[in-house]
């Protein structure tokens, strides 16, 4: 059994990483500057082209407020809808149970699994779990593929390799594909990965992805993507499994569409290349109108809903706003700490809102404490957040709990005696 680390060890390791791999890494700072400039330019273009997007924010907030306040009811309704659609629905209480359910659905070892980018699967460490059971698992989103081959963790909610420069990406892709790639051509890098992963898609037994929203009334998953990898992962294999946090559920199809269009617009896209709506296994009724499952797409559709503390959090008036996060990642491009450290600011989830997710969902208070005290409480993320999530307010409230538990950093602990003379 793994020994529980002391708070001092946790701080020391965190600081070594955030300073060593983050703040002192000049390449990372440069990558972040480029990413920030691109984000702002893209967002400007998207909002100028679709100025009505600014009005999306208020309605999106209301949908989330209602959904989180009615979470358990919506979970039940979603599971009924999925089953009505001839899919399978599960509610996993924690990460371990979610991974176990998915492993059981996949079945015997040595299956080929192709995955789409999903923070929820990162939360449960699904890839590592399945690999340890002998499955060949491939991340198929380019950024996440780079994360996998370098043995790292995602550095941003939507752009997992935001910390990499083109020079580093070319080196990594050259190593794994055996092609000599130049940093001057991102197009060639993309083509090399496409060619490398094409065989994996066609021979995969199982496709796995997350979702950006689920409509409870129809049991429909909404998945935004640009690369087309999820299109393949959700279409070619026999089985398709979605692992989705319960907070992604909203009441209706219209609500789900509103949430995804808000997500992509503030994630700086005019429009994504693909928006998938998946409500069950593939089917046909072309012979005598008899509905038969397993046409060209997957024969089986499984939705694993992940609780992992979300239901309890939805009842906490001080912190339930954490669950409003759509993971658009907009806030991170404006965070002064993310500028210098990218996802090293955070443990499983990055940034200030990520510190809150780590504390309540993914890692627990003790492991998340250094990230919570990394936040500069400057409130810039709230302004950039399309849902106006008040991260700084929640960070301050959480600090009171962490301080009480003895999880504050040494400097903070000394304030009481040195400055307040108490």
């Amino acid at each position: 059994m793994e020994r529980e680390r002391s708070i001092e060890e946790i701080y020391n390791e965190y600081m070594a990483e955030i300073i060593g791999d983050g703040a002192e890494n000049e390449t990372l700072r440069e990558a972040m500057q480029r990413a920030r400039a691109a984000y702002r330019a893209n967002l400007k273009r998207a909002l100028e082209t679709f100025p009505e997007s600014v009005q999306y924010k208020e309605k999106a907030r209301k949908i989330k407020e209602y959904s989180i306040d009615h979470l358990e009811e919506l979970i039940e309704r979603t599971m009924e809808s999925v089953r009505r659609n001839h899919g399978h629905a599960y509610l996993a209480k924690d990460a371990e149970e979610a991974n176990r359910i998915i492993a059981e659905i996949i079945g015997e070892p040595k299956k080929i699994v192709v995955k789409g980018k999903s923070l929820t699967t990162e939360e449960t460490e699904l890839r590592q779990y399945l690999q340890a059971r002998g499955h060949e698992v491939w991340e198929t989103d380019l950024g996440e593929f780079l994360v996998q081959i370098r043995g790292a963790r995602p550095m941003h909610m939507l752009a997992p390799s935001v910390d990499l420069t083109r020079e580093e990406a070319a080196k990594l892709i050259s190593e794994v594909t055996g092609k000599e790639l130049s940093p001057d051509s991102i197009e060639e890098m993309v083509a090399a990965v496409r060619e490398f992963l094409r065989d994996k898609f066609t021979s995969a037994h199982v496709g796995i992805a997350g979702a950006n929203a689920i409509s409870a009334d129809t049991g429909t998953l909404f998945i935004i993507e640009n690369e087309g990898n999820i299109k393949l992962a959700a279409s070619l294999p026999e089985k398709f499994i979605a692992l989705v946090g319960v907070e992604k559920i909203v009441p209706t199809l219209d609500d789900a569409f509103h949430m995804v269009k808000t997500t992509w617009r503030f994630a700086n896209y005019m429009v994504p290349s693909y928006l998938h709506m998946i409500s069950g296994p593939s089917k046909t009724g072309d012979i005598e109108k008899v509905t038969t499952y397993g046409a060209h797409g997957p024969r089986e559709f499984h939705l694993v809903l992940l609780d992992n503390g979300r239901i309890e959090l939805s009842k906490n008036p001080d912190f339930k706003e954490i669950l409003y996060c759509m993971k658009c990642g907009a806030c991170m491009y404006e965070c002064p700490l993310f500028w210098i450290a990218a996802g090293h600011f955070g443990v499983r989830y990055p940034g200030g809102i990520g510190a809150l997710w780590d504390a309540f969902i993914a890692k627990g208070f003790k492991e998340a404490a250094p990230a919570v005290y990394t936040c500069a409480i400057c409130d810039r993320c709230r302004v950039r957040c399309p849902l106006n999530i008040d991260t700084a307010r929640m960070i301050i409230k959480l600090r009171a709990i962490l301080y009480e538990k003895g999880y504050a950093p040494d400097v903070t602990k000394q304030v009481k005696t040195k400055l307040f003379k108490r």
Partner: protein
Amino acid sequence: MKVVLAGRVNLMHTGQEDVLESIVSLMGKLGVDLAFIQDEVVCMEASINLGISDVAEELFREFKDKVEALKPDVVVSAYAAGVAKWAREVPERYGLRLSVPYIHLTEFFAEELERRKPSLKPFPHRYFLQHGCTLGRKLGRYQAAREVLSHIPEIEVIEEDYPTAEIEGLDPAVFNSCPASWLNFTLPELGEYAKENYVLDVLVPRKPEFAGSTCANGHYGIRQGLEIAEIEDIKPLYFTQILDQVWR
């Protein structure tokens, strides 16, 4: 008029005596009766922001008693945290309210300048103004600082822009970058990098001769950042230092 200056010890504790001197000098020029709080605690507002909640109420209660004993007409501070805490959090959390107004120095001087309309000397320099996160973004109070600086002849004020502010119908200052001063109370060794990055990323490209924040905490972050980044051609200058220089 009797004015209590809150945060005097913070300015001294952070080596910003130059800012303190300029405030005292200006108050003298205005002819106000300036009073200080005895045995003032350094940055007691941090008790809330850092989670040191077991002493917070006691600190705010003591502050209230000490301030009200001085019987001022107004409490002012170069720091935004105190203004914000007394505006909302302290009344909400502890039911404590000051019997006198507590305003930020930018607001105090904006009012005084408007009322007195003094003839100020020119300040022919490029000045970068950062709106402190608490005063600006959290309280939405930007105009006072702009009004104060608008009274100074020949000053060129530069503020940070943001590409989507207009489309979103927001004051660009709401997006002002942050020199991460609060990290001095949590992870200062990490804060050094953030401050340096702020200076290199936000200040240096805009080529000001002087830079300052509306909030003395943000201003301290800018000072530290300039020092860490070893930038000598941009000088930290708080708005009261400019006012004191140009006041005839």
